[in-house]
């Protein structure tokens, strides 16, 4: 196959064999791809190609070949983005790690591609306005819920999966991955193992801040857990340690990003 100027994001790159690198990219029409790139540090007009091939920026990549690994034949910038820094940057690593862990090679996901681009653009906005925590959280949740949806791991947020009854604001529910919500007696279940009906209803309407934001985060973790396996997400644990020295209050730790 021979593809010209395909919109892509670079998820990861690492040295590969002699003088080459292996790029893990997410492309709009071909999904997640492995591309072998040669001579990235070679000097050329406008700087070496390796400098252009950075994560989190829109790229137009050309590639060819057949089989599992393709060969990069060209790269251009696909648009500019305010540079990511600080917590927005760490959050972006987390989004990429999610895709690397959950997407198969050649798994085509155009809607997820768009959602990833939108999430990165949101993070970039947050980074440039400096209005950190508040806007960072909802951006991450929006992407995570979209990811669950596109990968088929989402559950129905409007009904009790065990009986089909509508979720009630004053009830409490247990969440079973790949099944859905099931009503439980509030007293019988610790608050961090069940979800309040009000929170589920708020999340269904896309409210990812405040109290329902914390519930949303717990919901995502519960739903992704069976698919991520036992290996923790490395960017998430790093994100948590950077919070560590600063986050003095329990509240701040709880409210932390990913």
């Amino acid at each position: 196959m021979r593809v010209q100027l395909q919109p892509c994001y670079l998820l990861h790159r690492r040295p590969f064999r002699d003088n080459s690198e292996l790029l893990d990219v997410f492309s709009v029409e071909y999904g997640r791809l492995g591309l072998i790139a040669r001579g990235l540090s070679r000097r050329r007009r406008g700087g070496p190609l390796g400098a252009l091939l950075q994560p989190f920026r829109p790229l137009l990549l050309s590639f060819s070949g057949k089989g599992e690994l393709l060969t990069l034949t060209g790269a251009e910038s696909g648009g500019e983005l305010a540079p990511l820094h600080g917590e927005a940057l760490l959050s972006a690593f987390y989004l990429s790690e999610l895709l690397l862990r959950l997407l198969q090679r050649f798994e085509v996901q155009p809607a997820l591609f768009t959602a990833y681009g939108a999430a990165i653009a949101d993070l970039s906005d947050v980074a440039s306005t400096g209005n950190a925590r508040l806007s960072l959280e909802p951006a991450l949740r929006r992407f995570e819920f979209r990811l669950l949806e596109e990968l088929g791991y989402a559950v129905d947020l409007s009904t009790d999966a065990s009986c089909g009854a509508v979720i009630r604001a004053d009830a409490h529910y247990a969440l079973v991955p790949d099944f859905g919500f099931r009503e439980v007696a509030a007293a019988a279940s610790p608050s961090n193992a069940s979800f309040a009906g009000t929170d589920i209803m708020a999340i269904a309407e896309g409210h990812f801040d405040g109290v329902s934001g914390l519930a949303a985060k717990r919901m995502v973790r519960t739903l992704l857990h069976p698919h991520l396996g036992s290996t923790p997400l490395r960017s998430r644990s790093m994100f948590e340690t950077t919070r560590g020295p600063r986050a003095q209050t329990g509240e701040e730790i709880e409210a932390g990003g990913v």
Partner: protein
Amino acid sequence: MYRFSPAMDALIEGLRCLPGVGPKSAQRMALHLLERNREGALTLSRSLADAVERVGRCQQCRNLAEAVLCGICSDTGRDPTLLCIVETPGDILAIEQAGGYRGRYFVLMGHLSPIDGIGPEEIGLPILEALARDGEVQEVILATNPTVEGEATAYYITRMLEPLIPRLSRIAHGVPLGGELEYVDGSTLAHAFSGRQPVRGS
């Protein structure tokens, strides 16, 4: 495929550990050493074995060193209150060649790369934190690369050192001297804009 001898094959295979050396160039190098320059080959093999045996890490800054401390850390003429953090020993060479810097260094030997499992421990941050807690260092200059990983590393270190070090700065990344704006790539230009310096009025 024709093979010379087991020793020759081992040499060719060994040379391939060098960056950018494929099977063809490894073959050429091996032939050159054995056919044309046996004396050079012997010197190379001795100095290689010697270096691998004797060169370790400086206990204070993680730079390459033959003693407990590297040449820079043991140089009393250097300012111990000033610390520059770099990714590799090669970066020290570049800064030293540029001249003008009289402080000490700390070498991370890489950068944070969560996806590859390279975290704070792997780049020696506990050692850096202990050094910062000693209280001698007053100013830290972050000179990690202008890549996203370098940026994330600088951010992480900033968060860690903020309560400990009075002055923290990050080297400016921007338009190269002698470069023409038209040929500078977009992200470099964006970096240069966000790191612009006031010339008047502020």
